[in-house]
C-alpha cells in the first residue's frame, strides 16, 4: 500500500504510463526533428502513425509477413510516403508563413484518416502479439508482460539512438547547422534540400515505427492517431519545440505523470498534461528545454 493505493494498481498504472510515455516520446521526437529543420508542425504525424500500424496489418494479412518484418518494412514504406509528401507539397510552402504548413498537414491528416475510416470502419482490427514476446514474467511486486517491456526498451533505444546521431555525429552536426542557418550550410556544399526531404522521411518513419509497436497493444484503428496527436502536441510544447532531449524526457515523464494521476485522481487524468502545459507556459514560455527564438 502506498498512500492508500494498492501496490498492484500503482505499478500497473505506472507501467501503462511508461508505455504511453514511450509513444509520446517517439512521436514528439519525430515532431521535434521535423520542426527543427522544416519549421513545420506536422499535423499528419498521428495519421502516419496510424498508417504504420496498418502497414503491419496489411503485411500480415496479405503477404504473410509477421511482426518483425513489419517493424522493418513499415517505417521504410511510410518514410517513402513522407518523402513524396515533402517533395510534392510541403516543399511549395517553405517561402510562406509556417502556419500554412500546419494547415496543409492538417488537411492531409483529414484525408488520410477519412480514407482509412471509409475503407475499414471505426472499429479496431486485431493484431496479435508475436509469439517470441507473448507471456510475461512475475517481478515479485507486479506482473510484467514481455511485449510491454519490449516496447519500453525499444522506444528508449530508438530515442537515445536518434539523440546520439543528432547531437554526437558528423551527420547530426550538419543537421544542427542547417537548423541554425540553412543558407550558410548550403554555401559549404551540403545539399540542404535533400537533407530536409530525408529528415521529414525519417521523422515520419519514427511515427510509423511507433505505430507498429502500438498495433498489438491498442489494435489497428483508423482513428488511433487522431486524439493522440493532440496530447503529443502538448508534450512537445512542454518540452520545448525543436528540442530533441526535451521531447524524449518530457514524453516519458508525462506518460508516468498521467499514469500516476490515474491512480491518485482519476478525474484529472485526461487533462493533467494540458494543465502542466499551462503552468509551464506561465513560467517558461519556450518550454522546459526550449530556447526563445
Amino acid at each position: 500500500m502506498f498512500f492508500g493505493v494498492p501496490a498492484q494498481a500503482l505499478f500497473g498504472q505506472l507501467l501503462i504510463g511508461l508505455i504511453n510515455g514511450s509513444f509520446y516520446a517517439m512521436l514528439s521526437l519525430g515532431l521535434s526533428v521535423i520542426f527543427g529543420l522544416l519549421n513545420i508542425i506536422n499535423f499528419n504525424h498521428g495519421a502516419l502513425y496510424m498508417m504504420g500500424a496498418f502497414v503491419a496489418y496489411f503485411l500480415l494479412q496479405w503477404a504473410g509477413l509477421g511482426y518483425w518484418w513489419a517493424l522493418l518494412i513499415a517505417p521504410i514504406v511510410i518514410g517513402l510516403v513522407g518523402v513524396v509528401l515533402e517533395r510534392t507539397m510541403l516543399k511549395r510552402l517553405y517561402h510562406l508563413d509556417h502556419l500554412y504548413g500546419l494547415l496543409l498537414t492538417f488537411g492531409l491528416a483529414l484525408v488520410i484518416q477519412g480514407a482509412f475510416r471509409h475503407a475499414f470502419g471505426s472499429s479496431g482490427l486485431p493484431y496479435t502479439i508475436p509469439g517470441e514476446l507473448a507471456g510475461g514474467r512475475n517481478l515479485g511486486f507486479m506482473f510484467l508482460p514481455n511485449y510491454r517491456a519490449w516496447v519500453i526498451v525499444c522506444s528508449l533505444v530508438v530515442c537515445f539512438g536518434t539523440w546520439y546521431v543528432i547531437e554526437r555525429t558528423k551527420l547530426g552536426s550538419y543537421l544542427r547547422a542547417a537548423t541554425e542557418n540553412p543558407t550558410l550550410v548550403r554555401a559549404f556544399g551540403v545539399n540542404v534540400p535533400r537533407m530536409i526531404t530525408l529528415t521529414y522521411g525519417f521523422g515520419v518513419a519514427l511515427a510509423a515505427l511507433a505505430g507498429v509497436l502500438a498495433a498489438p497493444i491498442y489494435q489497428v484503428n483508423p482513428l488511433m492517431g487522431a486524439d493522440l496527436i493532440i496530447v503529443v502536441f502538448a508534450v512537445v510544447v512542454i518540452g520545448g519545440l525543436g528540442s530533441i532531449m526535451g521531447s524524449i524526457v518530457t514524453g516519458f515523464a508525462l506518460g508516468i505523470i498521467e499514469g500516476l494521476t490515474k491512480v491518485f485522481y482519476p478525474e484529472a487524468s485526461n487533462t493533467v498534461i494540458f494543465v502542466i502545459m499551462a503552468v509551464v507556459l506561465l513560467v517558461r514560455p519556450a518550454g522546459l528545454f526550449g530556447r526563445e527564438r
Partner: protein
Amino acid sequence: MSTGDTHAEAQEPAATATVPHHQVVAFVLMVAFFTAAPFFVYPVFLMKALCFGLFACAFGLLIGYVGLLSFGHAAFLGTAGYVTAHAAKVWGWSPELAIAAGTALAGALGLVVGALAIRSRGIYFANITLAFAQMIYFFCVQVPFTHGEDGIQAVPRGTLLGLLDLHTETAMYFAVLAIFVAGLLLIYRTIHSPFGQVLKAIRENEPRAISLGYRADRYKLLAFVLSAALSGLAGGTKALVFQLASLTDVHWTMSGEVVLMTLLGGLGTVFGPVVGALIMVTLEHYLAQLGAWITIVQGAIFVVCVLTFRRGVVGEVARLLKKPL
C-alpha cells in the same frame, strides 16, 4: 499569419476611419440575400450557415486582422452552447438572457485562455490554443451538466424579449439573422476603428508597434476576448436553433472546420468567412449521407486551398475587382 502577400490589404490607405463605399454595397447585398433566402431555402439550413458564418467571422477577426491562428475556437463555440442550453432548459431563462450568459462565459474563457496564449506567436500560439481547447473538451466530457455523449437535448427556444415566440422557424430565422448582422457590424466597426488600425499595425510589425508606445499584448488580448465572445454568441444561438448542445461543438475537429471556412472564404477579408461557412455547410448538407467522405472532402479542400488557392473565394473576387472586401 502575415496575410499581406495574399490579399489587397496593402493598398488600403493607412487611416481609413470611414467605411469604403463598395463594402457597404456588399454588406447590403448580403443582408438582402439572407432576408430573401428563407422563402426559397430550408430555414434551418440557413440558420446553420448564419451561425457558422458568425463563428467564422469571429475567428477571421483574429487571424485576418491580428495574425493569430487559433486552433481552439471550438471551445468558445461549444461551452457557450452548453451554458445557453443549460440556462434555457434547467434554469428557464429567456432566450436573450441565455445567449447573453453563453456569450459572457465564452468571453471570460477567452480572457483566461488569451492571457496565457498571447504570450506566444505563430505555431506556438496555434498549438497552445489547441491544447487549451482539448482541456476544455475533456472538462465538458466529465462534468455532469453537459450530459456527456447525449448532450443537452430538447432545449426550449422560448420567447424572445417576452414578445416573439421562437418556436416557429421564420421567427427563429429572423432572430438569428438579427444576431448575425449585429455581430458582423460589431466586427466591421472594430476592423475600421482606430483599435482595428492598431491591430493591423501589430500584425504587420509588432516590434515597431510596441516601439510606438502601443501595448501590443493588451490589444491582442482584447481582440482575442472579442473573438471568443462572438464565437460564444454564435454557439449560444446555434444551441437554441438546433435545441441541442453536444460534444461535437467542443471537439477539435470543429476548430479545424472554422479554420477551413475562413481559409476557403478568404483570410483577411470581411465577407470571406461568411462565404466559406455557406460553402462548407452546403457541402456537409449534401455529403451527410456519405459518412467518412465528408472528412476526405474537407481535407482535400484544405490541401487545395493551401497549395493553390490561398486568397480564398472572396480574396480572388476582391483581387479581380481591385478592392478589399
